[in-house]
């Protein structure tokens, strides 16, 4: 008798390979034509996309390096020339791949002609993109989005809006691209459509059993990160939502025997993504929600896309204070009816991991559910101690018995 797997594979995930291939192909094509930008994950990509600038994502590349289990080697190339092992492993992976493309997955990302960084996800991106600029000779543009500890004020929006104007000018002078309102509105519409569909799939996970588990979301989030503003991205999320909806209707869960529902906080350990989450699935533990994939939630409004871009991208999850993080976790736990939470303290992502200890206390106090913190890294598997993590996770699960 063959043993049934504890998790169910998504049919729509089969399309992902095709989409990621198309995305890479577009990147290479844009690079050959001298119009490729490397962008940070929280960059208002609607602007470059509407200006026909190709975009690729070093952070997503970092995830590929991690998933291929070559993080220590590729990060090591950057460390060999003096970069600290304390530095962001996405940064080390991208710098390492520029130094030794032939030894890196996909032979690295295609050569950029511009580097677009937005500090709404962290402050490291500026120095990281400066380092990439030194190696590739592509100029850097920084979109500054001051951190929001309070509700966004009009002067704040105006400041970021000014940055958007500078971005358009930068892309015009650097790459000779032009922007029309019509094209931006069209791109913003497609971007919003994809994000709205993505949000619907995420919200469907309130169902019991949850139709998507953590690993499903971490994989299917790829297009909403890298291909916002493209029709094929919208098409993919339509297909995904149809599958999710049908799973909910038929009561089919992402895992076969859902007993415990947990929240995941932070970027996943890409090198362990199946081993960890499927291992948990075998024990009846599902993750109907996480803070990471919920971060791609701001839809750009087409009627005033310039101001909307300034608002949406300033309000990203990591650009806000601890209070906002605690609120988000509290709401996810309550709305998705979760039994507890696991916070992954990512050694090289300080911005995401800072304040987790106090957040854990606040969230437990507000929701009454227990949580634990496990330590490791998203790409650098040298920092992942399975025995220590196992004890923390097992002890948390024993609290539900």
């Amino acid at each position, binding site marked *: 008798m063959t043993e049934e797997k504890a998790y169910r594979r998504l049919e729509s995930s089969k399309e992902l390979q095709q989409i990621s291939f198309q995305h890479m192909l577009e990147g290479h094509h844009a690079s050959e034509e001298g119009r490729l930008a490397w962008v940070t994950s929280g960059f208002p990509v609607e602007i470059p996309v509407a200006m026909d600038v190709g975009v690729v994502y070093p952070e997503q590349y970092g995830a590929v390096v991690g998933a291929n289990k070559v993080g220590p080697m590729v990060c090591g190339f950057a460390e060999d020339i003096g970069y600290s092992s304390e530095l962001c492993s996405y940064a080390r992976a991208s710098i390492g791949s520029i130094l030794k493309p032939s030894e890196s997955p996909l032979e690295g990302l295609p050569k950029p002609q511009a580097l677009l960084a937005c500090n709404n996800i962290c402050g490291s991106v500026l120095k990281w993109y400066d380092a990439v600029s030194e190696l590739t000779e592509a100029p850097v543009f920084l979109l500054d989005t001051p951190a929001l500890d309070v509700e966004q004020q009009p002067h704040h929006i105006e400041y970021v809006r000014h940055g958007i104007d500078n971005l358009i000018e930068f892309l015009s002078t650097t790459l000779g691209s032009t922007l029309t309102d019509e094209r931006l509105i069209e791109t913003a519409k497609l971007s919003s459509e994809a994000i709205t569909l993505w949000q619907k799939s995420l919200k469907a996970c309130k169902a019991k059993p949850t139709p998507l588990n953590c690993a499903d979301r971490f994989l299917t989030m790829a297009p909403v990160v890298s291909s916002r503003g493209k029709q094929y991205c919208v098409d993919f999320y339509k297909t995904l939502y149809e599958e999710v909806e049908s799973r909910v209707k038929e009561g089919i869960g992402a895992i076969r025997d859902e007993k415990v529902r947990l929240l995941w906080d932070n970027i996943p350990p890409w090198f362990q993504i199946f081993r960890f989450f499927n291992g948990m699935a075998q024990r009846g533990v599902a993750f109907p929600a996480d803070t990471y994939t919920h971060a791609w939630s701001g839809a750009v409004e087409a009627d005033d896309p310039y101001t909307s871009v300034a608002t949406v991208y300033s309000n990203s999850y990591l650009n806000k204070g601890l209070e906002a993080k605690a609120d988000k976790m509290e709401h996810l736990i309550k709305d998705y009816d979760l039994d507890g939470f696991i916070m992954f303290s990512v050694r090289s992502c300080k911005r995401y991991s800072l304040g987790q200890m106090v957040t854990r206390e606040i969230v437990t106090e507000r929701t009454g559910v227990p949580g634990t913190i496990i330590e490791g890294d998203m790409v650098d598997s040298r920092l992942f101690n399975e025995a220590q993590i196992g*004890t923390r996770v*097992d*002890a948390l699960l*024993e609290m539900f018995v």
Partner: protein
Amino acid sequence: MASGKLGIGVDVGSTTTKAVLIDHTGSILASHLMNTGAAAEAAALKCIDEICKMAKITPNDATTIGTGYGRALVESAFKRVTEITCHSVGVHHLNPDIRLLIDVGGQDSKVIRIGPKGRPEDFEINDKCSAGTGRFLEVMARVLEVTMDELGPLALKSDSPCDISSTCTVFAESEVIGRIGAGDAPHDIAAGIHRSMASKIATLSKRVGVVQPIGVTGGVAQNPAFKHYISRQLDSELWVPDIPQLTGALGAAVLALKDPS
């Protein structure tokens, strides 16, 4: 030969392996403790063998639960439970009043808040660092050329402990060597070492929330200087069981006994 249902708990820790056999009333019939060494599986077998010999039973006569870092290696165990849960249950079995448990083992130190039914409500474990663990004291004893049994009493002779600022075992070792070179008295250095370690564990305790009464288990609970400094840091009296290293194994045995299977 013992009668009624019997429970065996085996705690395979990074430094020592412990086994406890209890009868249906929860009384300890036999226990054994030995160094884990490189062959953790063999240590677990040997421990079970020893307690079975003492009680004149065979391992099949009892229900076994494995715990500790090497819990997966306890072959005869029908179930594995973490040391967090087992320590809570073990302490609760011995002293049901305890609400906060500080367990300092060879490789890790943990603080567990225990609920009224003996189950963990919250816990913290030291981060990826051996400062604040038994290993820290072992390294320091070696540097000061005293045995582990001598280290605590030596520290208690001090009136003015040295400041040991490092929170890393390796760097603290260099710091201690520097202190010896500077002519500081060994008892002041030893006191500084214990104070530094107690401070780290007190911080861990405060993160969980200090609730009374407090129990201390693990091999380090036998060290009088550690007890002295942690008691001062937390401004609390501390309860220590007779054989503090056995608490995890005892908890596993209690759980084995309770299991309906």
